[in-house]
């Protein structure tokens, strides 16, 4: 994995978030978040429920208008030129859903068209076969298992080879085999030159796949470093020491910084 502390070969960040503020009425969901993701980097955004992860992703995806701040995707401002920015993004939403009446093949054809890709029927079938769904071409999305749905969602998210892939809790609800497969696919995408921003509740996932992670809570970015760097940085923090059971882990750092009360 890349060492994020060492400057990347291309220093221009693929994602540049500056002073981002997201509000829902009087409630502030994201407050003055600044973040850069380098090319070829896998970046994890960690936080408890309601911390502001999905709101941050929604602002990057252009699904909501920030109250303040800018989001540049590969140098393109998502607010000023949303279509150009979205064409550079691949997105897997927390709960992806597709039209219930469409078959898998028709779904892939639709999304290829939305990214202006001219691909043949045989090419579509090949891509579907490559994710192990060759026998399911004529089935609808809802008739697939959770793992199959997740693979199809990922195929569609990367169908246009985006420069930045956004994954919102991609392994939520997956069995260990499917989770490992997804991690391998994420790593392959990075090897292909892509950059990935993922949100997760799994510290194991963050440690296994992420080059750098940031912890967000109450809309504020609390800390940011490599998984090992975060542990080293907060090892002696009294809040972390208090919750650690043995050697300090990333989960101890997470709980120490965000508190141990249950969030809804």
């Amino acid at each position: 994995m890349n060492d994020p502390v060492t400057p990347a070969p291309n220093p221009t960040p693929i994602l540049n978030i500056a002073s981002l503020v997201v509000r829902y009425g009087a409630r502030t969901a994201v407050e003055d978040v600044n973040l850069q993701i380098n090319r070829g980097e896998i970046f994890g955004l960690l936080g408890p429920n309601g911390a502001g992860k999905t709101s941050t992703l929604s602002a990057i995806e252009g699904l909501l208008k920030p109250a303040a701040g800018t989001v540049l995707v590969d140098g393109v401002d998502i607010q000023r030129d949303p279509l150009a920015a979205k064409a550079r993004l691949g997105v897997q939403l927390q709960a992806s859903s597709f039209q219930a009446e469409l078959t898998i093949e028709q779904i892939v054809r639709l999304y290829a068209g939305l990214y202006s890709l001219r691909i043949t029927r045989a090419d579509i079938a090949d891509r579907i076969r490559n994710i192990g769904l060759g026998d399911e071409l004529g089935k609808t999305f809802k008739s697939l298992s959770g793992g199959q749905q997740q693979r199809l969602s990922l195929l569609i998210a990367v169908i246009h080879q985006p420069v930045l892939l956004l994954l919102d809790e991609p392994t939520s609800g997956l069995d260990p085999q499917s989770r490992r497969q997804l991690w391998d696919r994420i790593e392959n995408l990075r090897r292909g030159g892509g950059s990935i921003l993922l949100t997760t509740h799994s510290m194991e996932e963050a440690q296994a796949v992420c080059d750098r992670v940031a912890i967000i809570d109450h809309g504020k970015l609390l800390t940011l470093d490599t998984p090992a760097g975060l542990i080293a940085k907060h090892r002696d923090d009294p809040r972390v020491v208090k919750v650690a059971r043995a050697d300090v882990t990333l989960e101890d750092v997470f709980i120490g910084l965000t508190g141990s009360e249950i969030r809804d």
Partner: protein
Amino acid sequence: MTSAITTPTGDTVRPEIGMIFGSLLRADFTVLLRSGRTLLLNFAVPILILVIIGLRTTKGGTTAFSGPGFVIGLALTYGLMASSLIGYSNTIARDRDAGVFQRLRVTPAPTWAIMCSRLLVQIVVDLIMTVIVVIIGSIVTRTAFTAGQYLLLVCVSILGGAMFLAIAQALVALVRSAAVINAVGRLLYIVFLLLGLLGASGILGTTIHDIANWSPVGAMINLYGGVLNFSSWGWTETNGLIATAAYIIIGALIGIRWFRWEAR
């Protein structure tokens, strides 16, 4: 949109609005034609009305309705109303609830293209329904229509389709819950149906008759009757045209201003 995107592998992708819109249209047509409810609402309901009332009229049965224009107009009106108030509104509400729109909105597809594609597909299906109903209507009522009358019927159907779609769009804009939209859509259908049938027949008195003439159903029946018997075009038909235009404008304004892409 003209800006080109270079993928991590060096390929250049240039999003094309024509291809995006074409892909949306193809998918929306597939969804509509695969929906059994749509076929039932769009085709079975008007044909059933046509056959039942049309045959009673031609056999001299005791009915308050008379004339091929009235019968065909009634059948077309209920076909348009059912497909919009029950079919279109429920599909939009279901897709919004399921996150289908969210998935589409993170692609380079402009939001106007996503919505226009759905509306256009519905209008085209309405027009196909018009041609089929008029052909069956001319057989059932033993009436021959001129090419000019066919053309005028198509024009009125476009207006009628637009009016009921505008009302349905206003409904999905003002109400977020899919269950409530389903209930309100059916309630409106029954209210319009009774107002149109009983009010237009005159059996509830002149006041209700006048109100019915300005209702969506009354306006449409008068317009269909007017174009099939153009020589008798009068103020009632002109008022129907004014009412239809007003419903389209008001429905579209509400439907665009207050529509939300997310259910929550």
